[in-house]
């Protein structure tokens, strides 16, 4: 007997999607829609744009699942990377909007959502949140400006009126510390 989509691993779902199994794509969407839509919203602050991004990502998964290489990374990393990359491309295309992470934070905090309880991922989120909280403010801000704001090191330096060398150091130190903190909880994050 085949496992139901809910019991299948992410990799199982991608294999089924590679065989053009619509139910598997629907299951993958159900599993990750809250995280991926939340990520696109944090970057774009627009439901319309974020939904377009999510749709594009799922269509890309539908077309390219067969090319996904498990040895190079996890399906979750692939999905998140696709979503972030498309959202940031769109952000750069829109251009006129203020590309600061602060703006995105403010707007998403004002939104109400019934997605607050995403049981599967709430523990993983708490671990990441705690790890970020342990970083000094300026390191955390450098990482979030890059990750959610789509800014390069030079752009961060300009925005924070900080020397480029300082931004590079903060980014390096912040990422290394984050990796160590998250690696310590690796078994709960996998």
């Amino acid at each position, binding site marked *: 007997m085949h496992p139901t989509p809910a019991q299948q691993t992410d990799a199982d779902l991608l294999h*089924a999607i590679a065989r053009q199994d619509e139910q598997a794509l629907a299951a993958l969407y159900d599993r990750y829609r809250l995280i991926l839509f*939340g990520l696109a919203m944090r970057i774009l602050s627009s439901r319309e744009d974020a939904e377009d991004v999510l749709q594009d990502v799922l269509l890309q998964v539908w077309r390219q699942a067969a090319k996904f290489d498990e040895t190079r*990374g996890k399906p979750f990393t692939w999905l998140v990377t696709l979503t972030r990359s498309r959202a940031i491309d769109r952000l750069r295309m829109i251009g006129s909007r203020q590309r600061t992470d602060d703006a995105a934070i403010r707007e998403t905090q004002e939104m109400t*959502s019934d997605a607050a309880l995403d049981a599967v*991922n709430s523990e993983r989120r708490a671990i*990441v949140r705690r790890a*970020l909280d342990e970083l000094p403010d300026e390191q955390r801000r450098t990482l979030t400006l*890059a990750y959610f704001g789509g800014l390069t090191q030079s752009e961060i330096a300009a925005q924070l009126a900080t020397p480029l060398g300082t931004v590079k150091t903060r980014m390096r130190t912040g990422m290394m510390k984050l990796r160590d903190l998250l690696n310590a909880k690796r078994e709960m994050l996998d």
Partner: protein
Amino acid sequence: MAHDEYKDLLLAQALTALDESDQQTLAEHLENCAECRSELNQWEQTASLLSLDAKPLEPSPELRGRILNSLSVSASNRASEGTNVVQLPVAKPSSSWAAWGAIAAAVMFVALAIGLAVLWQQNRATKDQLARLNEELQQTNRQLADERAVTTLLTDPNARRAALVGTSLAPAAQATLAYDRDGRAILLAKDLPPAPAGKAYQLWFIAGGTPLPGKVFRPTPQGGGTLLDQIPQNALNAIFAVTLEPESGVQKPTGEIYLKSGS
């Protein structure tokens, strides 16, 4: 650059935060360094966990259906179940070899039917995709033509320019209408009040006291507006005005004037 110096670039690349020159330097190095490629993978896994810092949010309930409807190929696994394959009448085998032959033929027939079904599906998907790409191309061409027209008008030293100023309804609003001798015109407006739902701004060419209708546009959230239009030949010396009208536009002005050029 020493090998260790590339290591510092890897974590910034995982955040796609490298400036262009660094990015190029690293890309060249990565082509020949499996160790750094592997390390970049690990940094990308770490970076992807940052996504969990974003608050999870529920997309609109319609999105799921929209995505599933847009899949151009209905699941070919349905075809592979082979439920529609016709059973071949098998003649009584005269020997076990004949029986095996019949089974092999049936298997080949099923495989052929599945192959044909998959090919048919792929062909249909390719056609759908081609139609979509064609439509995107046409849309891009239209945008490009519009952008060319804007650039031509704005850089044409012979183009004429009329300044439109805000009326008492929009004292901060202002606009410029640039147009050439053939009547090709572009309106660039700013600081307009937001248009209520179902309403849009419409451009008018008032020649000899008669308003001739132009196109409609909705302002951006910042109050800006850009409109490409064609001024009728008999209205090149007209007064230009912008009114608030129903979104589909009207033949005669019914709303208040928000912007107006001098006589």
